[in-house]
């Protein structure tokens, strides 16, 4: 019976823990205690607003990340460029006709500022692991960017979140 309760305690958070006699805080309590500073990767590859499409393609082939943040001269996060976006821009003529207008307008520019998606999902440095996980699920994104007054500080991927949650589950 106690074994059964232990298994339950792992899968069902909240009041179940008290019934098992354990003092472990619930999963939500534990993930709220982990600040974003503990999980963000600060050593990140960024693009500058003035980078040309050829430079951007080089970055994609060199580093193999899915998404790159775009920053301005002050180090502020201004947008993102994903693998999907760069593929759409390069292969515009084979993309669905419904996407053409937006992509064609973007392709009028040949730098990162012109083609980037200007509204990435961000979190402040006082956020915690729970906030980040909720945002990722809510907005269906694979990474969020940590900013301090608009300045890019780091990035958290969904895999980082899963790894961290895996650790606190024991």
């Amino acid at each position, binding site marked *: 019976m106690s074994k059964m309760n232990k298994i339950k305690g792992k899968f069902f958070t909240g009041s179940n823990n008290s019934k098992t006699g354990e003092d472990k805080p619930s999963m939500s309590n534990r993930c709220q205690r982990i600040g974003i500073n503990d999980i963000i990767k600060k050593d990140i590859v960024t693009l500058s607003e003035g980078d040309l499409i050829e430079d951007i393609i080089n970055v994609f082939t060199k580093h193999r990340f899915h998404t790159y943040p775009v920053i301005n001269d002050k180090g502020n996060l201004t947008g993102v460029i994903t693998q999907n976006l760069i593929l759409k821009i390069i292969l515009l003529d084979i993309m669905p006709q419904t996407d053409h207008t*937006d992509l064609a307008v973007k392709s*009028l520019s040949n730098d990162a500022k012109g083609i980037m998606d200007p509204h990435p999902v961000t979190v402040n440095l006082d956020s915690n692991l729970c906030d980040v996980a909720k945002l990722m699920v809510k907005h269906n994104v694979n990474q969020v960017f940590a900013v301090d007054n608009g300045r890019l500080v780091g990035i958290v991927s969904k895999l980082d979140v899963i790894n961290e949650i895996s650790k606190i589950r024991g």
Partner: protein
Amino acid sequence: MDVILQIFLVVLLAKIFGELSIRLGLPSIFGGILAGIVLGPFFAEPNGEIFSFLAELGAIFLFFTAAYNEVSIRYIQTLSKYTLIPTFTHILVAFVCGYTLGYIFDLGFLENIFIGIAFSSTSIGSVVNMLIGCNYLSKNPGPLVLSSAILNNFVGVIMLGIIVSVATYQRLPGGREILTIISGVVGFLVIMIVLGYKVYPVLFKYIHRMQIKESIFAFVIIIALVSAYLAEILGLHSVIGAFIGGIFLSEIPLARIEDIQSKVSGISYGVFIPMFYAFIGMSIDFSILQTNGLFTIAVIVLALLGKLLGGYIGSKILKVNSYDSLIFGIGSMPKADVELVVISIGLSMGVIDDVSYSAIVLMVATSVVVSPLLLKYTIQAKEGANIGCRGI
């Protein structure tokens, strides 16, 4: 016919015909219009209240999505002065052609203005499809053609906003009425600026934290409708309100998350916008066109010629060579969204009649078929080779 059945059939046929249109190298709007033409005779009241309301919602979402999802005001700010001259000339020449045509056929002053505005617009989507099809999006003068279409679209919406306000009086307004119109426009813009820069950024921070399902999406739609409603009560048309609401909302990061954009685009292009195009198709009266053949031909020829000449002259002023000037003129010819909204508003306000309405719809359809053909032959003449344009 039952309304649910009507909606189901319109969306189904619009998608099937739209797909066929795309495969033939034509814009998908043909699908919606064709669905309307096919279904029109089976609908007991094609202009019935419920369906015309759904069509109005379609026009609102068409303009809202264009500003919110596709072409942000940022692009207008980056357009060079080089774009201004040829854009101004093709708008002006086409407008004069439309107004003069109405004058020759003895139409009313306001109807002439509506026809002039319908003549002076260019469809961004059709231009893009045409340039991509002929592989000219990045070759000169492709970028200039597209920039000009973007600017033309914004100017067209502004012209529409002004004329709708004027047309509510069904005559040329007097001094006090002009003041009322101006105060309505200024009042609306002030409200939108305050909402856009002060209220929405704070509001969306709270909405972002809401637990209820699809809160951000719901508020984006609410803002589209609120903007449309505010515009109406201040004497502008709802589609203008939705367009301006979309512009301001497009600058709010939390409202422009990709997932939300995709949902807004889904409900707009998946459901409401096909209703608008179908309504356009249902309202065409082919019997009237038969008895007004000369007027219809004059509408088609002058609308396209006005754009061609205006674009050519503007490019020549910039000392662009003759072939590129011709390509620019042809590139400003295709019409679609703004023109169809202009005439449907004109018809609903009783400013334009069924003859002008049907002739202009036919002109819009002709423009998107003829322009890519002309572009193809001009490029072939310019490059001296038998180049191919996709779908043509």
